[in-house]
């Protein structure tokens, strides 16, 4: 891994590797921002998120385990998804592109020019 990369460990829920723009969802009002190919990032999801989850290329949540909404939905829809990405909605704020590796359980993104990479 490059030293200029930030990374965040997480738990894979449904495999796949996706590169996309992270969209932080704080409430249902933000869901319309998700365009095809974006990565939906939220503390957790519920059924009202589903249309946006269908549009997204991948889903990242801060919480959840095997039986949480995001995990079950992802397995049923074969959508790359990672869970337990601690503080993802905060650390990914302002980031323009991320790589979600739902095989290994890792999110990576480029650090700013003068920053060192950091493992969150």
């Amino acid at each position, binding site marked *: 891994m490059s030293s200029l990369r930030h990374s965040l460990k997480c738990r894979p829920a449904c495999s796949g590797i996706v590169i996309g723009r992270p969209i932080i969802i704080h*409430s*249902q*009002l933000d*869901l*319309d921002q998700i365009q095809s190919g974006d990565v939906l990032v939220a503390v957790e999801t*519920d*059924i*009202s998120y*589903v*249309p*946006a989850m*269908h*549009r997204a290329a991948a889903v990242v949540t801060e919480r959840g385990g*095997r*039986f949480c*909404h995001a995990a*079950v*939905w992802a*397995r*049923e*829809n*074969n959508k790359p998804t990672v869970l337990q990405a601690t503080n993802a909605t905060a650390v990914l704020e302002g980031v323009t592109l991320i790589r979600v590796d739902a095989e290994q359980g890792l999110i990576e993104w480029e650090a700013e020019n003068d920053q060192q990479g950091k493992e969150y």
Partner: protein
Amino acid sequence: MMPMTANQPLRHRNSPLVMVSRDTEVDFSTRCGIDRSAAMLINVENRIDLHERKFGRDRLLRTIEKVSPHDLSQHVSRYRVLVRSNEWPNVAEPAPLAEFLNDYELASLAYVDVGFIALEFVGAGNDRTYASVYHQVVASEALRGQYGKQSPTGLDARLDWYEAQLTAVLDKILGEATPNAVDLLCIPNEPHLTAESAMLESFAQVRAIFAEPPTIDSILAAEPTPHEIVWKFLRRHAQWSIQHLNEYYHRLGIDLLQDRLEVARNRRRDLAARRSELMAEIARRCPATVLGQIIHFANALAALNHINLTLEPSFSFKGGVGLGHGLIFNLSEKKMPNGRPTQSEIARDKWALRDKTKLTTAEIT
């Protein structure tokens, strides 16, 4: 394992729960499989249907139409905060699974009954005082919570327990061969769909009736629709809000909908095939006694997970009856800033509500 008795000590969230085994007097396979959870879903939906008709469907849609867009859009997140930031008198009830499922159903029915009392109040259609409705809403939420995620012997605790049991048995049989074995065994099979899959299928049916976003008048004019399609969607996925229903039109365009329907159907077929292969592999590798154990745990997980994926998202606080509760909770900030009942009062009221719902349900059925 021994069956539970009322005298057994209370258990903490992380302690092992004692569940009923196949050797006890409760016939696990016939009383606790996914058929039982599917029956629960039907019973709760029928109860909502009963209330809808008593309340008046026209009136119900118009009552919800008056809820502010802010209250509608913030409902789930506000309710979640309310549940998590307040103390609730959840006690451990390490009952057999069959008993737990019965209690879960009663709590869900009580939540429906009180949800409509709340909606009646919001629609100014009854002469109850706010304090009386608020106390019932608190008791109803407490009863729902008693069997829910935060409870020491609630849904999530039981899912975790059965997951651990099944994982331990499967690890011995399969080793690393099928890492997703537990996932495969606990996803509901068709015809039992998760709320998300049901939502896609149901929305496609609604779109077949209304190509464009409907209004209250056009919905009422189209009554009755075959198989109650529109009402099932409204109550399960849109909190009876025409605004919410119309958002689905906006967010799930016809092309995306068709594409996702096909993906989801293919995926379900694929998962069903893999599940069959897995069961065949398990049957080849393990003796009959262990196979019985696996089926026992997998049936329990499937039933609990089915509740987790159907009743919980559609008819708990995220649904329309939950909105009724939420609107009453919202009013409490103004009307009763210091009026939250004590823990012992909430506990007393929630058990009284359970007893009352048991009687009401017996009368209805």
